[in-house]
């Protein structure tokens, strides 16, 4: 669910076969899908591998801040819903790694890139979940922003990615509602609960707005990903769409957004909003967010602590194959 536009830089188009390239582009222009074994420009393969793997990393790192609260969920209904949601995120990471694997990079290689710090993931997960309201805010805002990003990806030119996104979008339809329901319950609860909800909105609003990546004028994207039909809308368009959809939802439950410049523009029929603090964004991306180190430490621990388990399963499979082979020989 958690794409982030910024992280993918276009690969410079390597000098390839012009005939194949023209045929490829004509295929894409005709809204036909590219499938794993089809010829594709190296830049397309690299850009997609990077984007899909970063998307996958975001899903599995995203399990951590929310996973934090499963054992502390305040009711059994909430506990089951949150567990199912975090589990979904693991599933979505899995679908996405599979999609990226069709491009020729193994899941282990991608894991290695994540754990070594080479690969990026959505920087939103480098913020801490401090109260139960943060679980509401993540579902409502972070999933809400992600959905804006993800729906167009269902039409991405690369078949496996598009198919994974269709499945993901379908499964995620409950995630945002789950979050909003938590926020609504808190906003309508005791004064302490309402304060908790407001505090969460205050902390998560700007990072969510930043999930769409830098303004189009500053974006590192060329038109290439658009031309390849990996990306369909600009960062700013998606961001505006998110803000327009979200602000009335917040007002409906009596919460205020931490932006004094936020006001409805009668002329454009959009919500105008204040200046985004990109220095903070860049700092968190660069590794100095509140939880970057903690998240990577936890991912690495899970990977390292699981090694003997993965090895055991492999060893057993080999033993069994050998035994079956021996039994066959004995029987002959």
């Amino acid at each position, binding site marked *: 669910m958690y794409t982030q536009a910024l992280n993918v830089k276009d690969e410079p188009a390597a000098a390839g076969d012009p005939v194949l390239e023209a045929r490829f582009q004509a295929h894409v222009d005709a809204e036909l899908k590219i499938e794993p074994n089809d010829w594709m420009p190296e830049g397309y393969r690299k850009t997609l591998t990077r984007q899909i793997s970063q998307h996958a990393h975001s899903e599995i790192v995203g399990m951590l801040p929310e996973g934090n609260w499963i054992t502390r969920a305040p009711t059994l209904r909430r506990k089951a819903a949150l567990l199912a949601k975090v589990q979904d995120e693991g599933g979505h990471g899995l679908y996405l790694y*599979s999609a990226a*694997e069709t491009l020729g990079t193994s899941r282990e290689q991608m894991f290695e890139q994540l754990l070594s710090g080479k690969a990026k993931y959505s920087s939103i997960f480098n913020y801490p979940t401090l109260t139960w309201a943060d679980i509401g805010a993540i579902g409502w805002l972070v999933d809400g922003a992600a959905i804006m990003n993800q729906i167009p990806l269902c039409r991405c030119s690369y078949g496996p990615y598009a198919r994974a996104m269709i499945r993901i979008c379908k499964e995620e339809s409950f995630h945002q509602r789950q979050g909003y329901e938590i926020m609504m319950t808190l906003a309508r609860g005791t004064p302490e609960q309402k304060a908790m909800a407001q505090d969460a909105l205050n902390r998560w609003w700007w990072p969510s707005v930043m999930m769409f990546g830098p303004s189009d004028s500053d974006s590192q994207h060329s038109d290439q990903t658009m031309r390849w039909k990996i990306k369909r809308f600009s960062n700013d368009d998606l961001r505006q769409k998110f803000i327009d959809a979200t602000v009335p939802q917040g007002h409906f439950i009596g919460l205020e957004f931490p932006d004094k410049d936020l006001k409805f523009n009668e002329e454009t029929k959009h919500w105008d909003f204040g200046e985004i603090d990109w220095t903070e964004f860049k700092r968190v991306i660069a590794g100095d967010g509140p939880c970057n180190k903690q998240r990577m430490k936890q991912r690495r621990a899970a990977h390292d602590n699981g090694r003997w388990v993965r090895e055991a399963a492999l060893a057993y*499979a080999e033993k069994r194959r050998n035994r079956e082979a021996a039994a066959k020989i004995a029987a002959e």
Partner: protein
Amino acid sequence: MTEQKTEQHWPLWEVFIRSKNGLSHRHAGSLHATDATMALQAARDVYTRRGEGLSIWVVPSNAITASDPTDKDVMFEPSESKIYRHPTFYDIPDEVGHM
């Protein structure tokens, strides 16, 4: 065996699911597993969380033989010209009714 030995990877499997009787199995996605038993369980846990399936097939990805996409024209173009295989090729007067 040395400490530095790079970890061996779990093989990739393809998952096919029959969503209800009467329909054929359809490719749902992939996963990693060390053997068929665990692949089947993982397929159940990963791909049927919302009642998507009644039957699962798992196949080691490397057991699939696929046609070569660069061979597409040779493989599939010859069939495109055989329009007499389609019912619309034949002219039957409307009066005859549906046939």
